[in-house]
């Protein structure tokens, strides 16, 4: 009687094509990265369509919080912009009845270098130039370094306002990781979720970043490519050419990156290849994982997690997410790999 009009059991369930809704019940609780929130909405909606009996919730509390809650056992799975470190891995295994942990790179999204410069729509930037801009070494848009990357462009003398994230974020972590690996001497700070340099213009969340870059002529920042909107998006030097942050290029770089060494059978954490020279790959990519147990204490949770992860990596699931969040779909190779983990989930 008190439900929302779109929640009544009979009206909606299974209406979108799935046909055979399955008999699962109970709860499925996850928490973690907010980066995948938009994709998660799509996954949740699709999953709830197929399994109307399961009460699903995902708390976009942040990757760190997600990992902690998972380890503490208060959630069944976590979303995380970073793979578990060794210490966390040990704790996670303990939480998983002493068994194995899965880490699936299910959300892949290119990070765009966004800019707002009157009269300039196209911009190519090399890693060293980007780093120079963000360290404050390059202060004006007509700097020779930028001109060298863009021989054909007419660049104004506008001052550059570099904008970084004020909050601790996966986006910053990946962006600084890229600069650290690709920019050579120009960038010396260790990669970190918190912006490592003092001072400068800082903005909260991707939305703050987009707002600030959008409001200041001469501003430059970095954000999830799907959120760039009307802002200029720079092409980033890859080898001899410049690549745009397309989903395909992002998926490609993930597929071709090596796995992290010495992890479990179902732990597919990867070491992103930031130094790729392939023109089809875009190196500034954020990968957000789903973390969970291979063995759960109870059957219900195991079934629910398996069903959810199965849906997420399915073509339907990936397509739904891509449509809502603008991220890259995982490749077939990654899907097959992930499927082995999903199949292995049991209770015990």
């Amino acid at each position, binding site marked *: 009687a008190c439900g929302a009009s779109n929640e009544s059991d009979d009206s909606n369930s299974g209406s979108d094509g799935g046909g055979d809704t399955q008999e699962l019940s109970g709860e499925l609780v996850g928490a973690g990265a907010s980066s995948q929130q938009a994709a998660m909405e799509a996954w949740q*909606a699709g999953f*709830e369509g197929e399994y109307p009996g399961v009460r699903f919730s995902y708390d976009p509390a942040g990757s760190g919080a997600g990992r902690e809650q998972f380890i503490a056992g208060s959630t069944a799975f976590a979303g995380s912009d970073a793979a578990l470190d060794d210490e966390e891995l040990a704790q996670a295994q303990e939480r998983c009845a002493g068994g194995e942990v899965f880490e699936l790179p299910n959300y892949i999204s290119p990070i765009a270098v966004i800019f707002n410069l009157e009269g300039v729509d196209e911009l190519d930037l090399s890693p060293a130039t980007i780093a120079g801009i963000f360290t404050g070494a390059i202060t004006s848009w007509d700097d020779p370094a930028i001109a060298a990357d863009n021989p054909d462009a007419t660049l104004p003398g506008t001052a550059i306002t570099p904008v970084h994230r004020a909050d601790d974020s996966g986006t910053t972590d990946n962006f600084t990781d890229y600069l650290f690996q690709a920019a050579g001497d120009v960038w010396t700070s260790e990669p970190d979720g918190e912006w490592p340099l003092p001072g400068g213009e800082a903005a909260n969340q991707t939305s703050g970043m987009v707002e600030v870059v959008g409001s200041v002529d001469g501003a430059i920042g970095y954000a999830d490519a799907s959120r760039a909107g009307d802002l200029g998006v720079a092409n980033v030097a890859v080898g001899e050419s410049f690549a745009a942050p397309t989903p395909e290029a992002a998926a490609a770089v993930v597929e071709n990156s090596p796995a992290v060494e010495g992890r479990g059978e179902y732990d597919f954490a990867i070491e992103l290849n930031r130094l790729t020279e392939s023109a089809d790959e875009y190196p500034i990519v954020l990968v957000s994982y789903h973390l969970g147990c291979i063995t759960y204490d109870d059957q219900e949770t195991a079934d629910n997690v398996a069903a959810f992860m199965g849906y997420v990596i399915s073509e339907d699931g990936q397509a739904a997410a891509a449509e*809502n*969040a603008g991220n890259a779909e995982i490749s077939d190779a990654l899907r097959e790999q992930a499927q082995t983990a999903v199949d292995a989930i049991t209770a015990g």
Partner: protein
Amino acid sequence: MSTDTQAAPPAATPQEGPVRVQRKLPRYAPFGLFAGGVAVGAALSALTGFSVISTVVYGVVLGTVAVYAASRAVEGRRKATDRLVTSLVTTAFGIAMVPLVSLVWTVLDNGLARFDGQFFSNSMYRVVGEGGGAYHAVLGTLIITALATAISVPIGLMAAIYLVEYGTGRLKKAITFFVDVMTGIPSIVAGLFAFALFTLLFGNDFRAGVMGAVALSVLMIPVVVRSCEEVLKLVPNELREASYALGVPKWRTVMKVVLPTAVAGLGTGITLAVARVVGETAPLLITVGLITGTNLNPFDGRMATLPVFAYYQLTQPGVNEQAFLDRAWTAALLLIILVMALNVVARLISRFFAPTTGR
């Protein structure tokens, strides 16, 4: 300064009247002078590069100075001071209107897009992209706020009563002092505290609306105590004595004489306290999280609330960004309407009880 302001100079006495009517500015002179000041201010700001803010600032300053100077010259120091304060006080009100209008305009401008039936009847259950609504979040906010109010108002009001009617010595001092300290607890810390408390009591995976209500209560209680205390202090002792002298026990005196006399102020205070917490995001983010469906049971499971809903819609939109932003602003608009409605209810209640003042 002191010598030339001595009393009203008899020189300033015009016509025959016995009341030493000092010369007076004509009725509309202050307005005219003020307008003149604003005009000069506009000209000045045009010289220095025209902008709305500088025009207003220069204008108000010059207008005020013009009125003061003219009044000072014609009517003397006291009258001039009076006019100056009138200008200042009116300006203060005007200044406050600027952000208010701007804020309300911003919220209305952005929030009316989705102010439709669907928004009130639908939740976000299985909604991707466009559509959906905040039905679940509205109910969540109402339930959690009601719960927080139910916790905070009795405790806060009783504590205020203690402070005003019973308190003595150290305990009173301690409570007054620490209630002030409590107002400084950051909302996010309140959330962390409630989270830790419930985790301690009910284990790791316990999540419920009541956690949020407790977090909000930590923020709300000091506001209730402080504002109620101030209002109760204003009830004249005469009335208490009149009641005691009729053989009415103290507690009945408090309940039936003191509280009704102060009810209008209490209403304001409690409304203020509710308004203070109803829009809180951080503590709810930590404690009750967010779900897409409707949960009406505050003792089990996560709940959606309007501020958290708005926050995520604003900060984590999908590709179809506008749909998310629209939902966020409409949620904000709804919050404002909610508090307004509450305000009206409080006024009605107090109108019902309030003393009709006479001499």
